């Protein structure tokens, strides 16, 4: 990669607690080209906070500091809230975990997708409608005309998540952050949704950050993987080399997952004392 799309240097996210400030992300650095990067970790590892910090979505009293956070030549740390609003959606967008909570229940699907586009670009109504329908088709929704008129409670979880993706991709952003995009979905639907993200991301040459707790899934859909544990990146490797991971935490995670052809009598359990430095867990 020649010029990275996103460059993060020493990113820290801090929350104050009754027993003093706690760093949930502890000075991590990574860079991303127009590729698919997976961030894996268990709950509380700081992976979602990293995604949110990039979009500056962490509200007070949380505090984000970074030596450098540059997206396509724009210094994100120096942007005002107003400038960020212009970036969000248009240049960087985010797919959240659960479509049930992230879609507006009182707007039709079509209106919501159109809104995502109109916020950043004025368009004649007919063209807008055509764009919305073609986007719904792109996320493989049959009868886009009918679905555009539905309300979120009338669609299934998998369809809701595809609608979210349509909404996030219609302004044609350069970077898509997907935070557990499929963990609320069934296995069979999961693969469909990820295939759609994969097609659109590679087709348009976008960057993708896929945040998930599922190692196998990330290994299947990403080029590169970061493994996070209690706010730190413990391992960074090519997706294909995951089975050669060296860090005990990564190895423990891989071993703890039951396999399809399971013949072990007992699953190895992570021994947290093996690598944590006392803090956290």
């Amino acid at each position, binding site marked *: 990669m020649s010029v990275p799309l996103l460059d993060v240097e020493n990113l820290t996210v801090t929350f104050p607690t009754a027993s003093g400030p706690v760093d949930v992300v502890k000075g991590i650095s990574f860079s991303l080209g127009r590729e698919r990067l997976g961030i894996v970790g268990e709950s509380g590892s700081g992976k979602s906070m990293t995604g949110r910090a990039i979009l500056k979505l962490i509200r007070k009293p949380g505090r984000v500091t970074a030596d450098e956070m540059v997206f396509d030549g724009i210094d994100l740390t120096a942007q005002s809230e107003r400038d960020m609003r212009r970036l969000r959606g248009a240049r960087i967008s985010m797919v959240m975990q659960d479509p049930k909570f992230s879609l507006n229940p009182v707007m039709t699907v079509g209106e919501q997708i159109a809104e995502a586009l109109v916020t950043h670009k004025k368009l004649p109504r007919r063209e807008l409608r055509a764009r919305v329908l073609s986007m719904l088709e792109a996320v493989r929704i049959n009868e886009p005309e009918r679905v555009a008129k539905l309300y979120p409670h009338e669609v299934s979880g998998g369809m809701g998540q595809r609608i979210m993706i349509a909404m996030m991709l219609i302004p044609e952003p350069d970077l898509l952050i997907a935070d557990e995009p499929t963990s609320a979905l069934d296995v069979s639907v999961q*693969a469909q949704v990820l295939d759609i993200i994969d097609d659109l991301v590679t087709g348009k040459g976008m960057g993708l950050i896929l945040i998930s707790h599922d190692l196998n899934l990330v290994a299947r859909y990403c080029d590169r993987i970061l493994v996070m544990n209690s706010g730190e990146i413990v391992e960074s490797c090519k997706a294909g080399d995951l089975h050669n991971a060296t860090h005990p935490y990564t190895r423990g995670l891989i071993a703890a997952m039951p396999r399809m052809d399971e013949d072990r009598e007992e699953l190895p359990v992570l021994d947290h004392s093996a690598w944590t430095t006392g803090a956290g867990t």
Partner: protein
Amino acid sequence: MTQAAIELENLSISYGKTPVVHDVTFSVAEGESFALVGESGSGKSTILRAITGLAPDWTGRIAVLGAPRGHAPDRAFAKTCQMVFQDPYGSIHPRKTVDDCLAEPLAVHGIGGRDQRVRDMLAAVGLDQRFRFRFPHQLSGGQRQRVAIARALMLEPRVMLLDEPTSALDVSVQAEILNLLKKLRREQGLTYLMVTHNLPVVSFLCDRLAVMRHGRVVEIADAEALKTGRLADPYSRELYAASGGTLQPA
């Protein structure tokens, strides 16, 4: 093993006027671990709910350990068959301590020696005694799921219904709970009927599985068929491929 632990015959369940499960027939032998897999809305949890009496609108026949089930919750039945729910954050009373939570089934059934039983059960599910007087919010997800399992085991049931017992947990915690379930089954000779959508978990914990779709059982197979990728039904094969398995000709 002469009698079946759970027997379902032409079981159809509906919620109000909506039929959810159609004509399901299978039986689980005593000491067996049986899995129901399928996507959401396929009716797999509804079957567990009908067995426990939480979904009373059913026709057909349900028998547990040879005794036919009625349509309502039933105290004697509770002693033989207990259920563990998916979400440990929602299934434990937030304002009762672990001790209250574990002692309650004993109080309901008028069983004495509660103090000792609670202590033994905490040890059996691998929880330290210091957790006994804590509230659920002071426990992690994995610890809560251990409490939920402990509560289900308090009445020494012989049949356990497990509704996605690990899907709300992290991978490393999931491994702990799966090991615990396997150990308990070995030690106490329990029968498991488990609902899950995670096929590798089935491979680890179960002997047989039934694949469900749209309220019907499309295939019943041995775990061996799952391990070698030799499932027969096209839908089960699709599910298997989506979970990352490599298919073999059936």
